């Protein structure tokens, strides 16, 4: 009955209630949105660097190298000659090395020249079709296939560069041989081909010879994969592949390295910078740097949200305190009808807590709606999606407790005032 009366009281003063609710909703929504974004963002970034210790690429900003080669988000730093990369890829410290070569896109989605090992690294198995074997055979990431409605066997023309609308390579149509299962990682938004397709499109002089070379090779490569997934096999594949290649014409964009010896993580960056025209960057280090940069902004927004929560607490307090005067008789009357002091205390605390719970629920819901919208924008612009349905039990539980605490504190003074109300004096002044 007290709870019901509290609810009725909330409804009886719609403006006060609306103000408090809007403020509470806003603060909870911002905080939960930030929590979700930060959490999923970091997870996305960390997921994608699993198994990549170092990235070898052209000199330039290490962050740019990581963003472009690991996350496919930025423009590449430039190309490196395959033969100089080979030297390091064959180093005994290296456990596995996956070469990447960028050049073309199809309707804004990057076509990446690489080895089948790349899809294995992300745990992307085939949903249908087969892995690329010959030149101009491609395997399509799940998100692209879904978005563009691509099927196995379809052909398309790639265009130059990494954005939509570049020069179209009309003489080299790609054939889709397979579609990958969804992984939630960058590979969902990539089109994979072998390395020589990329070289072929960009005008190697002895085109036909390469094709046959690689044809033979990639069949062999696939064959070996069936036997074993061991990295050493793949590694030797690559060396044999590159042995076929004509070094001076072959360029790649970056190499994803997994090291056998972790000491190399520390020594290689200086070693390579000093001795070659290339650089290696550690994804873990660069991503950490990125988070620190982001962190400042996220923290500022969080403080803002806590500020709004404080204001909503004050608003509840003022609303309760203001109505106290007009409700004095109401309280005295309830006491006459047999209500104890504790009943009045409970009534006011309940009113505040109800507001907070409703505000929290609204906030959590609108935070997720906002995330859904952001996810839509991010998936178009950065090929990154966020899940609005994820619940962060620990963080959001804490947020709930904080909201309740705010409501409780806001109700405290008005509740104590009601508790200590002198009935006979109140009624004497009536």
């Amino acid at each position, binding site marked *: 009955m007290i709870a019901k009366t509290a609810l*009725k009281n909330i409804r009886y003063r719609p403006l006060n209630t609306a103000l408090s609710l809007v403020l509470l909703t806003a603060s909870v929504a911002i905080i939960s949105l930030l929590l979700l974004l930060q959490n999923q963002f970091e997870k996305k970034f960390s997921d994608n660097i699993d198994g990549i210790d170092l990235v070898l690429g052209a000199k330039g900003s290490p962050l740019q190298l990581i963003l472009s080669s690991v996350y496919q988000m930025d423009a590449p730093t430039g190309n490196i000659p395959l033969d100089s990369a080979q030297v390091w890829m064959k180093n005994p410290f290296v456990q596995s090395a996956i070469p990447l070569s960028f050049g073309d896109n199809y309707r804004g989605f990057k076509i990446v020249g690489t080895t089948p090992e790349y899809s294995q690294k992300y745990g992307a198995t085939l949903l249908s079709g087969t892995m690329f074997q010959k030149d101009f055979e491609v395997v399509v990431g799940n998100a692209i296939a879904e978005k563009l409605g691509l099927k196995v066997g379809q052909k398309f023309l790639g265009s130059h560069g990494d954005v939509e609308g570049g020069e179209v390579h009309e003489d080299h149509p790609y054939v889709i041989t397979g579609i990958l299962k969804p992984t939630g990682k960058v590979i969902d938004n990539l089109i994979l081909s072998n390395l020589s397709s990329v070289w072929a499109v960009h005008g190697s002089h002895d085109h036909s010879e390469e094709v046959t070379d690689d044809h033979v090779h990639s069949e062999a490569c696939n064959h070996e994969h069936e036997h074993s997934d061991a990295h050493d096999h793949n590694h030797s594949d690559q060396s044999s592949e590159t042995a076929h290649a004509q070094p001076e014409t072959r360029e790649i964009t970056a190499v994803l390295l997994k090291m056998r010896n972790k000491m190399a993580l520390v020594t290689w960056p200086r070693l390579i910078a000093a001795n070659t025209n290339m650089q290696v960057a550690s994804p873990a280090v660069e991503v950490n740097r990125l988070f620190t940069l982001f962190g400042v902004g996220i923290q500022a927004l969080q403080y803002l949200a806590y500020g709004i929560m404080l204001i909503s607490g004050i608003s509840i307090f003022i609303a309760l305190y203001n109505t106290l005067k007009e409700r004095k008789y109401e309280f005295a009357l309830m006491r*006459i*009808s047999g*209500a*104890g002091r*504790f009943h009045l205390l409970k009534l006011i605390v309940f009113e505040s807590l109800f507001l907070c719970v409703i505000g929290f629920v609204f906030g959590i819901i609108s935070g997720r709606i906002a995330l859904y919208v952001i996810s839509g924008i991010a998936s178009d612009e950065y090929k990154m999606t966020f899940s609005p349905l994820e619940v962060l039990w620990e963080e959001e539980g804490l947020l709930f407790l904080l909201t309740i605490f705010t409501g409780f504190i806001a109700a405290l003074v008005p509740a104590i005032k009601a508790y200590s109300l002198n009935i006979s004096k109140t009624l004497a002044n009536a």
Partner: protein
Amino acid sequence: MLGGLLRPSSGSVSIAGTALESLSERQLDAFRGRQIGMILQESHFVAALSVLENLQLASWLATGNQNSDRALQLLAELDLRDHAAKYTSQLSIGQKQRISIARALITSPSLVLADEPTSSLDDENAAIVTQLLKKLSQEYGAALIIVTHDQRLKEQFTNSVVL
């Protein structure tokens, strides 16, 4: 003091065999709810609740039971059955005063205290309220104490203490 709102500094107040000053604050609240019905000069209600809910709340606070049937029955006797779902602010003063009576009687108290129950009412409403007070307190077996300077009311009652 008789309503248990103030405590005597000396002496004793007993109602239905219970000495009020011996009760704790909490017991006193409960006793007041159950045994004493009060009608005030101006009627106050919980503004956010409907007429019926006000009566239910009063009953629940005193007895822990909402007693809706009795509330509706009382409203019917007071000719206010049609107003049960309205907010109290939508009623006239006379109607409000009648609801106060209903609220005072819903717990079947042994004592009804009425403080100037008719002072803000016109002749017609005063007559109705007086009749109801008399009739209902007899019906429910409650002692009725009215404090008034209203001549219309005094004429109706014979046993008065003039101060």
